[in-house]
């Protein structure tokens, strides 16, 4: 893991997903594509918000350490994905974080809502693993390598 000489700035990817199988497969997919970032996993929308704003169970978390990418599922218990997205975009601390919505929904309404709430990308979770893997790879290439992350996420690495 390439580290900075000063502080090891952790470039965290936050995965918001309630289905443990999907979590497993997603992480495997990322690993398979040599994504070595730390992956934080939260299982529902409320926990996602707590993590992002360092409240509740994550009160101890360092606010400076914002994720460089959020992979967000829409169908979440407690607080659903749309709400998380909105709250994320409302707060100054988190509003610049790139958010990729990873969901099974192919409803046009969801698509429209996500984009109007400020998602950066909308990807449908395909069943076939090949295509899923390809999607992950493309994600990694684009978001983690090519894309210029906003200042808060640190410099490219």
């Amino acid at each position, binding site marked *: 893991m390439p580290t900075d000489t000063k502080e090891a700035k952790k470039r965290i990817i936050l995965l918001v997903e309630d*289905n443990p199988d*999907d979590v*497993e497969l997603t992480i495997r997919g990322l690993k398979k594509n040599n994504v070595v970032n730390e992956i934080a996993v939260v299982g529902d929308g409320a926990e996602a918000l707590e993590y992002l704003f360092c409240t509740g169970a994550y009160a101890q978390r360092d606010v400076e350490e914002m994720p460089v990418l959020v992979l967000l599922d829409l169908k979440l218990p407690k607080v659903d994905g749309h709400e998380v997205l909105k709250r994320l975009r409302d707060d100054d601390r988190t509003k610049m974080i790139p958010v990729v919505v990873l969901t099974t*929904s192919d409803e046009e309404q969801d698509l429209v809502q996500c984009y109007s709430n400020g998602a950066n990308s909308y990807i449908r979770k395909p*069943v*076939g*693993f090949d295509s899923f893997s390809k999607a992950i790879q493309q994600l990694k290439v684009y978001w983690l390598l090519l894309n210029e992350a906003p200042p808060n996420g640190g410099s490219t690495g």
Partner: protein
Amino acid sequence: MKTFWSIKRKLLIFALCISLIPILVITILFYLSARGSVEKQINQKMIAVAESKALHIEAFLKTIRGRTIDFCSDGYIRDKLDIINQKVLLEQDAVVDLSSHLKNNKMPLDPDIASITVLNTTGTVVASTIKSIIGNDFSNHEEFVHIVSKNKKEVFTHRPHFQQYLNHSTMEVAAPVTSMESGQTIGIIINAYNQEIINDITSNREGMGNSGEIVIGLKEDGTIQFINTLKYTPGATTTLKIPLNDEAAEPMRLALEGKYGTIIGHDYRDINVIAAYRYIPSIGWGLVAKMDKAEAFGPLTVLRNIAIVLGGVSSIAVILVGISFSISTSRPINRLTAAAKKISNGNYDYSVEIDRHDEIGALAVSFNNMTSKLTHEINEHEKAEARLTGLNKELEAFCYSVSHDLRAPLRGIEGFSRALEEDYADKFDLQGKDYLRRICTASHKMDNLITDLLDLSRITRSKMKHEKVDLSALVKSKALELQETEPERQVEFVIAEGDCTDGDTKLLKIAIDNLMDNAWKFTGKHSQARIEFGISLQDGESVYFISDDGVGFDMTYADKLFGAFQRLHSITEFEGTGIGLATVNRIIQRHGGNIWAEGEIGQGAKFCFTL
């Protein structure tokens, strides 16, 4: 809509015609017939009066003539006249004697005689009941002229006229006196009768009303000369002369021509009269019995007025009845019409208030029943629709959640099978790897099934749009897609151009895609394939078809083709869920069309449909 002939107007006109026309006709006929009979009556009466008067006058004339003749045959008179004529000594005495004889013996015989005068053959008055005229020359008197000068030995009757010597209007009857010995005319005797006796006859106007008058006249110098005293202008009797050709002289003129009858004309006062005219032949006078038309037909006027009043009153009554009837009949009809209109405009709750005990009432009752039934049906219908919509929504939600909830575990199955395949490949032998592969395939298939089922249900549920759809364009774009998936395949696409048709673009795209997918799939075994889309005309309908030259199918199973999950090939030969054609069938049917297939094993298949 008031330009049409409303029932009310029709009924009114009909009622009026039916009732007014007979009333008017009857009234007029009645009046005319009454008038006819009244006229006839009056005519007959007038004629009778005229006739009776004429006869009376005739009798009167006969009497006075008879009397005169009688006097002429008086021996005493003849004697005395003889004496006087011979101019003998006793002449003066004879005159006196004769005169007294006349006065005392003759005149009393007839109270109507005004005077009796005897003339000699030279026209000199030799004796008279009026002493003062004895010795006067009467030779210019018409009687003398007629009897002596013209030597006519007959009675002469002179019409009444004013006599100077009598200072009165009289009528003179004269007859010759003949000598007892020689038989020669020795003189004439003149009886003068007062005008009044004629008047007495004519003034009896019994049966002629107040305005009735008998007029006697004769022709003289082209004019009518009146004989009796005229009722309305008594002083003018002798002076009033009416020219023969005057309108007022008509009745008298006709009488003097010897005719008899009745006529309506003017009289000497220029008033309309009804006149019966008659000739008195023995003296050549005309008699006219006349009555003012106004009085004669008086009863008729009354009759006419009664008829008018009755006719008017009954007409008004009839009109009112007609109006009320037409209104009372047409009003409910109008109400019903208005109600029907309201209801057709959408206000289904309207009910008509008509309370009648006839067919219209029954109609209104039926009408109300109909509308209440209609309202009920519509409400039921709306309820059913609402229920359906609700069910549909439920179904949609169900499908949606089913598809997603079913897919999640599928992802897991497939994903972890892959993971095993890739990460633990060395731990599995061929058999194990085969099992894993089968697991993957099975889950893929299940996913496809879910997708197809979702599509099928969505197609049934969704609202059909009505747009212009270019089928050829859909086929073309799908052909391109297919070619891109397997560029190495050589497939010839023959796509016909056609007009746009009416339908739902989305649904028709799904149908075309399905059919094209099938064509593509079932020609997969051929190195070269031909897929065609065309349009033909059958019985005035456009028939579209997609045909291929692939493996085809056995026509005996043709009816199974469109059933859900029906397959005519095994999975190993051709993959597929068997839902595709069922979906296409649903879509075509929703467009109101038909689909059928023709095929031959090894020769290919042709799917035809109408919309």
